[in-house]
């Protein structure tokens, strides 16, 4: 069975500092990887997916198959980035739903 690990439950950085939220996964095949964000009391929304290779709100994530990682990065944090961030995967071509990591609560201090 697949697994997603986000080692940091809470990450606090100052505004303007770089941010890296870690995500590692285990899956024997080729998964689809995603980052979802949940702002306070709002619905989850997609931030990034690895196949699109685009930057959203200044965030990027690179899939490293060798290290089975999909870390989320932003060079300069902004206060509005404070939220819960979830890394998730779907088995390639599967309809099993997303397997989420336990989430990282990112707090950007002024």
């Amino acid at each position, binding site marked *: 069975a697949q697994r997603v690990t986000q080692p940091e439950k809470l990450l606090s950085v100052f505004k303007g500092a770089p941010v890296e939220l870690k995500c590692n996964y285990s899956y024997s095949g080729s998964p689809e990887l995603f980052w979802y964000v949940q702002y306070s009391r709002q*619905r989850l929304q*997609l931030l990034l997916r690895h196949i699109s290779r685009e930057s959203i709100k200044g965030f990027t994530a690179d899939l490293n198959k060798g290290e089975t990682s999909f870390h989320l990065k932003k060079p300069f944090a902004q206060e509005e980035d404070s939220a819960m961030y979830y890394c998730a995967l779907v088995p*390639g*071509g599967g309809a099993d*739903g*997303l397997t*989420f990591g336990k*989430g990282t609560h990112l707090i950007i201090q002024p």
Partner: protein
Amino acid sequence: DTAVSQTPKYLVTQMGNDKSIKCEQNLGHDTMYWYKQDSKKFLKIMFSYNNKELIINETVPNRFSPKSPDKAHLNLHINSLELGDSAVYFCASSQRGSDTQYFGPGTRLTVL
């Protein structure tokens, strides 16, 4: 023009009751899901469903059952509610299983 909607937004009920949460999507998607977010913010898939197949997470008690009257709706029925069922339940949909999922606003269920 809400893409994925859920009702009710809040649900407070007594132990032992039976309740339903409704979900509708107007995106024309083929696959719908239910997720549970517990008090620690952990998110876990409960069900995924398209017209042909229902996939049930084996850890979900059989008191929970999804019902799909048509492709745009996937309702969640819960029998004999227990205290541990208190959580936020999110509905989601996607065009295909591996595509981006769009989430509803969540239903906060409190069992007293």
